[in-house]
């Protein structure tokens, strides 16, 4: 279902935007205002990250946001409530993003059920490769939730095919080695990689890691379906405040 939604939107726009927030950072109030701003600015889909104490795949900015949120007292329950709230209020799909331990401790089946009840579209779990994802795939499927998986530049063709077989909704293509938040040199080198991604799946492709301005988004036009803006929105918020987010997002495609 998520894939269809995104494909439909793609008919309207050459490139879609997926944005990311860490829930509860710096507060749930702020998170709500950011979601609002992003939706108003026209983003097509959002990732809501439940903070984890050991966010191994995240770079310094998101890591810091994870810790800030936890220090401010956010809990998994509060994040799920927040997810439910925004899912009901705003008419775009929301994905949960977190590390596997959050789901595992909650109980994977219970977590999926809760997500479904909350009206969330699916999840991204960056430390859960398909090989470890048996329980998760079953639970998510049972509740019609999208299981977003990740391709990376050094994922082999064969492995891409195997991942594609269990992926739902969209595939998140990591632009390069490294963690979130570092600069990516967007160049033609990416093309070969994205061509491989395209061959492996007909799900919408999202490209993330380092997308930070209009030039980056322009570059991705025609190459992928979604551009993912993660770290950069946190930076904008930290440096210029929540009010700066809407114009920032709008500027990426206007």
């Amino acid at each position, binding site marked *: 279902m998520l894939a269809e939604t995104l494909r439909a939107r793609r008919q309207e726009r050459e490139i879609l935007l997926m944005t990311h927030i860490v829930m509860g950072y710096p507060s749930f109030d702020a998170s709500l205002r950011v979601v609002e701003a992003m939706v108003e600015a026209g983003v097509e889909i959002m990732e809501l990250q439940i903070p984890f*104490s050991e966010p191994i795949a995240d770079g310094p900015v998101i890591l810091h946001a994870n*810790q800030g949120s936890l220090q401010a007292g956010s*809990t998994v*329950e509060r994040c799920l409530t927040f997810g439910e709230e925004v899912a009901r209020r705003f008419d775009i799909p929301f994905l949960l993003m977190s590390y596997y331990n959050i789901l595992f401790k909650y109980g994977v089946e219970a977590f999926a059920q809760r997500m479904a009840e909350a009206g969330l579209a699916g999840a991204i779990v960056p430390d859960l490769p398909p090989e470890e994802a048996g329980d998760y795939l079953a639970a998510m499927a049972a509740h019609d939730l999208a299981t977003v998986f*990740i391709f990376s530049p*050094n*994922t082999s063709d064969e492995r891409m095919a195997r991942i594609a077989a269990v992926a739902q909704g969209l595939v998140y293509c990591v632009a390069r080695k490294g963690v979130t938040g570092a600069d990516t040199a967007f160049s033609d080198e990416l093309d070969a990689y994205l061509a491989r991604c395209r061959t492996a799946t007909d799900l919408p492709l999202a490209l993330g890691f380092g997308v930070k301005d209009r030039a980056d988004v322009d570059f991705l036009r025609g190459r992928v379906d979604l551009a993912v803006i993660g770290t950069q929105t946190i930076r904008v918020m930290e440096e210029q405040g929540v009010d700066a987010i809407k114009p920032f997002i709008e500027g990426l495609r206007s």
Partner: protein
Amino acid sequence: MPERGYYGQFGGSFIPEILVATFDELIQAFEEAKADPGFWKAYETLMGSYSCRPTPLSYAENLTEHFGGARIYIKREDLNHTGAHKANNVMGQGLLVKRMGKSRVIAETGAGQHGVATATMAAKFGFDCTIYMGEVDVQRQRPNVFWMERLGATVVPVTEGTRILKDAINEAFRDWVTNMDDTHYALGTACGPHPFPEMVTWFQSIIGQEARGQVLKETGRLPTRVYACVGGGSNAMGVFSGFLDDDVELVGVEAGGRGLDTGAHAARLASRDASLGVAQGYKTYFLQDDDGQMRETHSVAAGLDYVGVSPILSHLKESGRVRFAAATDQEVVDALSLTIRKEGLIPALESAHGFVQAFKEAPELSRDDVILINQSGRGDKDIFTVADAFDDPNWRQFIRDKAEEYDAR
């Protein structure tokens, strides 16, 4: 796809997609090395000429008399180059890095012991080296930072999270995710994603192999019990490896900190405070809250102050093959003190945890029994911590005088 490294329900490989190919390569290199008898031979030769393997087995005659029970033998990993069993793992991984053709190694370190060992290995093999170390640990373990820097390593203080060992591990993974092409992450204990628990155990099994032969030769029998401290679990797995198939009781001793009922400890398997979880790439018992957020741990021994534990040990606990106990900070200082006085041996604070439990049990056993304690490292590397643990006023005065001398410059 290679084996994923499960031990019962524990282990696995929970890694970001970007690292999958790197792990595949590592698993393959490791499997090839295991299958190549020349590799182990080269490892033994290296450890025999660069460190001092086989490390001796010492009969603790005075402690034996003191407790009046089992005969106490001590495996002397403290005599390794760089002062602990960490050297075994690190030099083994160094050989593997050479085999894989990489030119840079990174590592996490808590107490600094694994960092010094890795920096040493890097110097010896000519690798570039970056060590991640929580800022808190950088501050309290400056001597080790000093040596790592002298050894040519870049020490990066990790300012995120709780700024201790687990955060250093996260940060090392972040580096690896970026630089996997030329870089190997030399994880320091039998934790983390497959193949680390198995691989580290394999290199450390040299302890148990040697010890088994030495105890047999020395006493004509196998030990009744074997004691080892458990941080991540590498020295314990190393010595236990030699006795898994024998009728020998294996006892792992975790950090009881201020007491199991205070919450201020690092006992994953000996307390009821831990629960199954997935973090830092593997599934095991973690000290975590109900949401799955990792908790702060405490131990007088920095090397045991860790939230997770080897999945192999979790499995051996579940199967009943290994028994677990905890030693409090105070018990550790007392056992350390006694061991120094009676035998002239200075176990690391980590190692002294194993001594505590052995001392509790030795009197129950008879002179026919033999117990083996793994002295994983030497304590003189930790003078700042040990002097504080002993609360020595002369030491404090010395430091004050030294500070004044520096101020006067």
